[in-house]
Structures are given as C-alpha cells and as structure tokens.
C-alpha cells in the first residue's frame, strides 16, 4: 500500500477577486501508487486541480501537500521534480528539434549529469516504445507518437506522479489506444501515482478510483464500478456511462439478475452465460 502522496485540504480557488469560485472547499488524497481518474463536465474544475498540483496556480484558501510538502513559492521547484504533466495538445509541448533533444530538455533543466542523461533517455524512450525515433523531428510524428514522446520527457525526470490532462482528447482511436497501452505498461514497471483527467468513459473503467467533480466541488469519490452504477445522477451532472454499463442497466430492468455491475464486454458476456446456463 502506498502513502498519501497528494493531499488537498479544503482548497478553494478563483481566477480573480470578483470572479466565481472555480473550486470550493475541495479535499481529497491520492496515494503514491494509485491510478486516479478525475472526471466532470467542462468547467467543473478538473484542469484547475491539475494546475494547482504542480504549482502553476496557487489556491486562495486551503493547503495542498505533495509528498508531505506544502506547495508554495519555496517548494515549487522541488515539487515540479516530483510531478510531471502531459497536456492535451501534442503540438504545444515540444521544444527540441529532435525527439532526443526534446526528451533531454527537462533533464538539462535539472542539471542531470550527461552519463545519467543518456541512460535515462534510452530507458524512457523504450518505456513508451519510441526508441527507434531518437533523431526524428517531433512535428513529423503522429499525434499518438507525439504524446508518447511527451510522456517519455516526463518519465526522464523520474517523477513520483504523472498527470495526464486530457492527453488523449485530440488523438484518433489508434493514438488513444497507444497512449493507454503505454500508460499501463509504465504503471506496471514504476510504482507512481497516475492522475488521468478525461472525458473518455472507457479510459475511466481502467483506474483504481474516480474523483467526480461537479461545479467546483467533489461530487463523489469511488471505484469506477460504483461511479457508473449511478447512471441517472451522472447524466444530470453532464456525464454519461459506458456502453456496457448502459446495456447492463437495461438488462436488469427487464429482470435479468446481474450479480456485479459489469463494465467490460467480457464481464457482461460472462453474466449472460451464467444466466443462460441456469435457464
């Protein structure tokens, strides 16, 4: 079991003094080895949470602790070594003219020694399956490849947490799959906290725990299965449930007894088979 790596205590934030609160009295904890999804309607405060986590923004009220340290001007540089971020637009986060320059950028900024840098460069590019692209120009890669390079750049600074802020939103289905596969394999090898901010419901089914935001407040914290069992309420706050959960809902309405709340094709097929065998 991990320890509390990220902690929000009664955090409130707004962009200006006369502006409405974007986050209101938000509290939650994320463990050092946990995979969390933050979901919510547009404007619910998801991305603001991400920016508060690594000190791009600072709250007017409450405290944010990262690895036990309060986020403030003195700790911000230390904290940014611990948390890496991957943003939505693959074209907006490149600085290097080649893939290797780009991945090295973060390490150079942190004064990583050359020998160590070469090793990490190789390791992080192979972790995302881009080891053969070292000398390629980033802008010639596909969207999914660009995001994988961005993840490699983050991995190279060996963070303890990675935040993916709608990192798959602009990708095609192939690109999305590439990123999800990459994340799963990274997660297996490195015990880190992973925070996925997303509208993609099938991505949400993969995580350990979901934080559902609504109008700047934490609306629910629960497992994907528990979250998606609240269909009606989710629809009311601008969200939806995955196809399988919908179909399962209609099946149980018709009186088919389903033991669990199935979320994957295989889980639902198994339930159908069990029901069939008893007939």
């Amino acid at each position: 079991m991990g320890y509390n790596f990220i902690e929000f205590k009664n955090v409130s934030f707004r962009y200006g003094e006369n502006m409405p609160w974007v986050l209101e009295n938000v509290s939650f904890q994320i463990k050092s080895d946990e995979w969390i999804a933050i979901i919510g309607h547009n404007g619910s405060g998801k991305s603001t949470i991400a920016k508060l986590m690594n000190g791009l923004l600072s709250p007017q009220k409450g405290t944010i602790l990262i690895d036990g340290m309060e986020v403030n001007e003195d700790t911000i540089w230390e904290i940014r070594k611990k948390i890496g971020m991957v943003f939505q637009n693959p074209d907006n986060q490149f600085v290097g003219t080649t893939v290797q320059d780009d991945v090295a950028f973060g390490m150079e900024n942190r004064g990583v020694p050359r020998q160590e840098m070469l090793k990490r460069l190789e390791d992080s590019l192979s972790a995302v399956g881009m080891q053969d692209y070292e000398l390629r120009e980033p802008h010639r890669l596909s969207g999914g490849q660009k995001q994988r390079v961005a993840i490699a750049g983050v991995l190279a600074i060996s963070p303890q947490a990675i935040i993916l802020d709608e990192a798959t939103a602009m990708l095609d289905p192939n690109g999305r799959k590439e990123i999800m596969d990459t994340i799963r394999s990274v997660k297996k090898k490195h015990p880190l906290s992973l925070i996925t901010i997303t509208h993609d419901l099938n991505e949400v089914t993969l995580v350990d725990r979901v934080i559902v935001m609504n109008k700047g407040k934490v609306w629910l914290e629960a497992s994907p299965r528990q979250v998606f069992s609240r269909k009606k309420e989710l629809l009311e706050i601008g969200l939806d449930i995955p196809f399988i959960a919908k179909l399962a809902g209609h099946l149980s309405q018709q009186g088919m007894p389903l033991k669990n709340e199935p979320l994957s094709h295989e889980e639902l097929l198994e339930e159908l088979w069990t029901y069939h065998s008893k007939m």
Partner: protein
Amino acid sequence: MDISFKNVSYTYQLNTPFEHKAIEDMSFNIPSGSFVAIVGHTGSGKSTLIQHLNGLLQPTAGEVAIGSYRLTAEKKLKDLKELRSKVGIVFQYPEHQLFEETVAKDIAFGPLNFGVEQQEIEKRTAEALKAVQLPEGMLERSPFELSGGQMRRVAIAGVLAVQPEVLILDEPTAGLDPRGQKDMMEMFKRLHKQEGLTTILVTHSMEDALVYADHVMIMDHGRKYMEGSPQEVFVKKEELKRVDLDVPEIIQFIFKVREMFPTDLNYHGQTIPELAEELGRITRGDIHE
C-alpha cells in the same frame, strides 16, 4: 448542393523534393441533403479533402463539382467568394478563431465580409444565436468570458449566419464533456433537417457516424477505402481492421455474443434497450430472432 469528386488528387508542394500526395484518385458523389460521415486515421487525407469543398485547395488533378461550381487544376474559379458563402466549414476547435469584442460582432464578421446589409445581418445574428441555443442576452458579452462549449457555439453561429447550403464539420465535439458532445450532435441533426443542409461530418467517433450519418466514407492513405450506409460499412469488421479501425462498440458486442451463443443476432440499427430485449430472449433460449 450536389457534390462530386472525379479522379481527384492533391499533392502538397508539387514538383519539389518535398512532394507529398495527400489524396489520390478519389471519386464519389454526395447528393444534396445527405448527412455524410468521413472516417479515417490522422493523415488519411480527411482535412485535405474537405478543404477542396470551398476552394481553400484546388485539386492538382481531377475535378471537384459543388453545385454548379467546378474546381480543376487548370482553371482558377472566378466566383470563389460566392462558393465560400455557400459552403461553411466549422474547423476543429473553432473557438480558437474567435477574436471580436462581442459575440454579436463575431457572428456578424462572416456575413459582413460577404457584403450582407446591416439590417439583414442583425436578423441573421439573432437567428444564428437561437439556432445554436444560446440566450439573446449573450450578444453584447465578450466571447472570451464564456465557457468552452459556449465559445464553440458562438463560432458555429458565425458560420451559420452566412447561411451556407453545405455545412462541413471537422471533429465538432472534440474536447467537450459527454453531455456537451451529445447536445452538439443533436443540434447539428436538427439544423440539418430544418435548414435542408448537406452535412459532412469528419469524425473519429464510429458511434457518432453510426447514429447521425446516412452515408459513411472510410479513407485510408489518401484514398477512398469503402463507402455505404452505416449499417453496411460498420459490420465489415475484417475490412475495417485492415485499416486499423474498429467497428462501433454495439456491433463489436453483437459479434462477441454470436461467438458465445448459437444465434443469428445481427445489427439492424437497434437501440440499446432493443438490444437488451433481444439478448434477454437469446439467453432464455429463444435462439432465433
């Protein structure tokens, strides 16, 4: 307006060492009033294709016909501006193109450029705002104070205010939350009917193509790979897999049911509740539909 492509190719930086064929020998017809989805991976040529529809690009070979307008490699179209007033393109993330001080001015920008009279512009602005379901009180606000979804609607209103006959949508729901996505697609469905538009939707979402389009075209490496009704195209699992596309989730699931149960269940446009009823019958042993 009827749209047709005859052996159209487009090569970027033609006759240079950087030559790149983006679309190759494409031929198809889109009858006026259709709702067509164009599906394909990044780099399959979708964006290049739609830029031909209002003359942002001119084919390097072949002929594009949009109503009575013709685009070929040889001739420059004289009434390009007229064509552009009839074909509206909503680009990806159109809210990034907002720039005016107020919502009203931003919506008016298109019609103003096409020489529409002031009085008519005001009428159209009000109508366009209503069409995208934004309240009238919003007209005097700065577009930059609005939420992402509202900003996108303002940008779309600006395209509608030109009163196009053909509406082209490039990934119109990207980045929106699930309800925002659904509301946006329902809005286009309604506009398509009400205004008698020809609508072309470029999308990665097989589910949207399945629900909203009456015709689907799959592109791969700059060529037309397949076309037909969604029900014809989306059951061709193997063919789609060959170009790295998945069939929509409801059809995927039906295939898996067929592997498990001896049934002739197939996709015929059923809704989720209807599918649930069919599954109920199959699992209870009434195998044949």
